């Protein structure tokens, strides 16, 4: 898969306009269907370059998350999506890359040019923010959150200045479960937690389990059920 050129061409400008219209429309739709509200609990909306990492159970997840960002942030925040799904047909690729401005990466890559970390770093070096789902796939189990893959750690080591913000997406798995394409209108919230960073000498596994715990701690259903 070719990394998209960062130089502006007429085609690129058209794509950007299309992308801006599509993402604004989707944000309005997402709010209308789910009444989504951001809860900033530990971090605030900011112009700082960030990696938003979130739980993943639905194709609607990143639409909901980006709908919660201020418009200027939304325009430069790009979701990382799986090329083996979103790159499969021309239509899916059009939706993912041109309409939603996602970054497609291969989960099982062979050529060095396909290295997901390299592709994501290229996007960060252009000044854009990322949305990533460290579970690596949509969670269909009864577990609230699957084990994290190591991408989050590798990105943070390579670009330590970029803030890592945990984002808990509530209810989206009920709105649009895997394998469905019509959303049920249920109320959703996205809870943005305090940024975390790799500590000095912290090894990969420790950091990943700390990031995992930080995200899981934002899930209100655990505290709601236990605090009755």
């Amino acid at each position, binding site marked *: 898969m070719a990394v998209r050129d960062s130089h502006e061409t007429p085609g690129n400008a058209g794509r950007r306009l299309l992308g801006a219209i599509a993402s604004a429309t989707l944000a309005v739709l997402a709010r209308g269907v789910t009444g989504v509200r951001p809860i900033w609990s530990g971090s605030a909306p900011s112009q700082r370059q960030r990696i938003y990492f979130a739980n993943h159970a639905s194709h609607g997840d990143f639409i909901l998350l980006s709908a919660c960002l201020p418009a200027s942030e939304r325009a430069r925040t790009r979701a990382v999506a799986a090329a083996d799904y979103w790159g499969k047909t021309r239509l899916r690729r059009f939706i993912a890359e041109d309409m939603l401005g996602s970054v497609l990466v291969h989960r099982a890559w062979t050529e060095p040019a396909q290295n997901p970390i390299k592709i994501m770093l290229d996007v960060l070096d252009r000044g854009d923010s990322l949305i990533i789902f460290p579970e690596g796939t949509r969670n269909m189990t009864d577990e609230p959150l699957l084990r994290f893959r190591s991408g989050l750690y590798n990105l943070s080591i390579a670009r330590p200045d970029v803030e890592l913000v945990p984002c808990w997406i509530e209810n989206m798995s009920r709105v649009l479960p895997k394998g469905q394409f019509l959303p049920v*209108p249920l109320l959703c919230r996205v809870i943005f937690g305090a940024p975390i960073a790799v500590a000095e000498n912290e090894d990969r596994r420790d950091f990943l389990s700390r990031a995992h715990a930080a995200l899981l701690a934002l899930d209100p259903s655990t505290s709601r059920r236990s605090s009755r």
Partner: protein
Amino acid sequence: MMRETTLLVLGLAGVLTTASVVAGILTWRAADPQSPTLVNLNQRIKAWWVMVALIAIAFLFGKDGMIVLFGLISFAALREFVTLTHSRRSDHWVLLGMFGIIIPVQYWLVWTEWYGLFTIFIPVYCFLIMPAITALHGDTERFLERIAAQQWAVMLAVYCVSHVPALMTLPIPGYENRSLLLIAFLIVTVQGSDVLQYIFGKLFGKHRFSPTVSPSKTWEGLIGGLLSASALGALLYWLTPFSPLEAAGVAFLACLMGFLGGLVASAIKRDQGVKDWGHLIEGHGGMMDRADSLVFAAPVFFHIVRYFWTV
């Protein structure tokens, strides 16, 4: 009817203006930081202005306006109810049907004035078909809990709420083309009763009505609110086909049902571990927090009027 509507809107604007002025004086005299009650009071009054304006606009569009308005209220209330209660992935199609089929069909039945099907569509057909679909999916995990929650959701948020616009379909001799005013009467007395219960409770509340369900409800609030709302109903008799005494009696029953609706809604919220149904209306909570009394009052009010006043 134009004269009554104008009078009513002016009256409501007057009450809200008074409320805004009183709250403004309280805020001006209050020490910083303001107490949460005062902040909430200001939010509530502001939201009331918006709600009265929206209802007034819907009024201008007559029957269609009322049906669209209450269809949207059903949508918001149903969304809150379904969000709060347990469902599984296998419920997806039933949930979709609740929003995509049941709401439009029920309000279409109001619009076509098909009374026979209007009264049984949800309690008979949906009641039987929804659990059948769930069973056909083969997922029996917490089956009864899931289908019961779905039944409650459509009964409260769609069936009961749709009885408000259905008041327009009642043929009352000597009251032709004025039935919008009956809706206004119901909303003003029942919502007025909520406000009056709140005021009486805040001013005189001492004895809790039901500490386990809703700590904020008091006997003083209940009695003061119900009696004053009945008096309000009598004062508004000119909107209705009732005599002043009948208006007081009907308002009393509607407001009593409204009180019970609030109590049941509180019990459901407590069971689910939340304080509010949602965040749609600032200071009030969700749509169900504002509409719970109307949900219980509307069907009873509808059938009282239908039994005693229609031919």
